């Protein structure tokens, strides 16, 4: 085995993801990586860099250019006991595979009373903020959340990228693994030679504790919320930040514990607001914490528009100021 990552240097999220696949492939010969350009090229984001060289083209395969075909053949491979790790090159290019995803991947276990589980990871680079032209910056998580039978997971840190992807590959259920493009090159002083533990799927984490209100967020919006929380101190707000990490299953416990404590919540994500994940999250917080709420749960999200061109995307993406504006509307005069 060749070591492609240096031991001492800080690692990027892309490297942590690569390392997770590499470790999983080394441990478990049934893990197969497949997709467009994942082999020789190492993926357009280089996340699968070196895997084909290390494990051979049968373990890390450049497929023909057809997303439904990729996911459909992965279903067949899973039926035969393999664990496919599929890369969709960009969020919007997963759409051709939706029928296979919805009608087969998500339901096969259920349809067959457990006889045919689908232990499969579908890696989808998602979200904007990288100056990509149209169809390269969609936040498609609402589609996945609305599909029972899928797990939907998204890391916000380098450590989680490793730990959650390991868990996703080990899972006996299909996991849509959403990778925030914008954070691919984010770094942490995480040593790839001593990877952190596998992180459980379905557990949110409190990234910052606070008493005034809770920011509920995930993926690319986590750094935005942490920055907003810092800035909010100047206004006298002590914000708690919950990183969901897993949209399905949803960690009601962690989220509600936080909101019951703070009494106020803002859900923050890049995806469009209407019909987006925030509706579900706000609704379930309200159902469970109604009498603890000093104000309605508010949402900060992308506008309800097709993802804009690169030069305008900064106006679309929820940034620190927009988060703080929402926090300001949490009816501070009213309560505790």
């Amino acid at each position, binding site marked *: 085995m060749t070591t492609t990552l240096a031991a001492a240097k800080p690692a990027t999220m892309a490297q942590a993801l690569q390392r997770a696949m590499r470790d999983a492939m080394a441990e478990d010969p049934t893990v197969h990586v497949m997709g467009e350009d994942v082999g020789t090229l190492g993926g357009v984001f280089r996340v699968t860099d070196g895997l084909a060289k290390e494990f051979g083209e049968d373990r890390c395969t450049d497929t023909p250019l057809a997303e439904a075909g990729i996911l459909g053949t992965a279903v067949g491979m899973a039926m035969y006991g*393999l664990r496919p790790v599929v890369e969709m090159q960009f969020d919007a290019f997963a759409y051709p595979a939706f029928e296979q995803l919805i009608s087969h991947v998500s339901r096969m276990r259920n349809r067959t009373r457990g006889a045919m589980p689908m232990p499969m990871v579908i890696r989808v680079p998602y979200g904007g903020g990288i100056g990509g032209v149209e169809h390269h910056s969609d936040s498609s998580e609402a589609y996945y959340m609305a599909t029972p039978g899928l797990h939907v997971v998204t890391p916000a840190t380098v450590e989680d990228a490793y730990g959650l992807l390991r868990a996703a590959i080990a899972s006996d259920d299909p996991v849509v693994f959403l990778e925030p493009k914008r954070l691919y090159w984010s770094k942490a002083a995480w040593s790839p030679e001593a990877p952190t533990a596998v992180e459980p799927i379905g557990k949110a984490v409190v990234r910052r504790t606070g008493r005034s209100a809770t920011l509920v967020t995930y993926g690319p919006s986590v750094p935005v919320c942490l920055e907003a929380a810092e800035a909010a101190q100047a206004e006298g707000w002590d914000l708690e930040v919950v990183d969901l990490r897993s949209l399905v299953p949803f960690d009601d416990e962690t989220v509600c514990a936080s909101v019951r404590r703070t009494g106020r919540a803002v859900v923050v994500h890049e995806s469009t607001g209407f019909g987006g994940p925030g509706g579900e999250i706000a609704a379930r917080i309200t159902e469970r914490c109604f009498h603890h709420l000093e104000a309605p749960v508010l949402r900060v999200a992308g506008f309800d528009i097709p993802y804009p061109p690169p030069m305008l995307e900064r106006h679309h993406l929820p940034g620190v100021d927009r988060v703080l504006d929402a926090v300001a509307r949490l009816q501070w005069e009213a309560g505790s």
Partner: protein
Amino acid sequence: MKQSSSTVQELPGAASAYRPTPPPAWKPRTDPAPLLPEAEPHRVLGTDAVATADPELLRRLYAELVRGRRYNAQATALTKQGRLAVYPSSTGQEACEVAAALALEDRDWLFPSYRDTLAAVARGLDPVQALTLLRGDWHTGYDPHEHRVAPLCTPLATQLPHAVGLAHAARLKGDDVVALAMVGDGGTSEGDFHEALNFAAVWQAPVVFLVQNNGFAISVPLAKQTAAPSLAHKAVGYGMPGRLVDGNDAVAVHQVLSEAVARARRGGGPTLVEAVTYRIDAHTNADDATRYRGDSEVEAWRAHDPILLLERELTERGMLDEEGKRQAAEAAETMAAALRERMNAEPVLDPMDLFAHVYAEQTAQLREQAAQLRAELDAAGDDASAGTEGDVR
């Protein structure tokens, strides 16, 4: 911008000194000729070729066809009695169904569509389990691994990439396994058909695609589905051989499929087989075929019935007499009686199964929802075994 190429003029200068060479990277990798299908559907029955067929196989095929026809009739009857939600009959197509099952080894895999319960049953599946989907008590009524029969597939052509993936995985594992996937003429228009065949050819996966061209996709005739010389000609575009066969000639279908399976098994890659056949019944019991086709067409096909063709051959060759026919009919009747009886029993259902197998481990949310339904059922004094249909209240 416009430029008419019709203005043909003599050019100045001598003929060019250099000779054309193909562009550097271009080389034909496959000779297309061997990929092209037969000019007419391959037949065995009624030709001299039948003399080389295995008599035991002929008798076996005959018995299975008769049983298959009876199975279709019984399932259709069960639909009329409300015992099945729906039944897409393969009456008239039994030769394809039976030959597909018999062309495979035990270790091979079958990927049937919703119309192919018969192939699954001919492969050994319990007839009642094969009907679970259509009765409506669960989706897939059998463990696919038991007889290596994938779930009956409703979304058209979506099972084809599954077959490719499974065959590919088997080959990667070093297993000597072939997958046979069934699809209709209509299904060939779907993108998944294209993607599956392309993956299969690129990977040289051991998979055989059987298109049952029964002339219709519900009401839409083949002429509105494709302009191709034949569906088998589609093979050329993937670099795999296409075979065209009379789908009502059970021996011919069996022969062509067996050859394709053998080819796949020895590493020769995939084959596309088009079997030309006809759906004698309506699309399903819910369909009214008189809306889109005339009796005369159906009658012409009845004269080309797969059982008739084989029966005539066997009779002429002295391999089948009235007693033989009686025996086959009797065996079919026994199967049908058992099926009828077993299907008349009300299935025992547990509503709590709704929450089973959604995930490997039930999520907290599903536990909550299961508790809710449990409470509702308890409150209603529901004995949890009723099997009647969607009375929403």
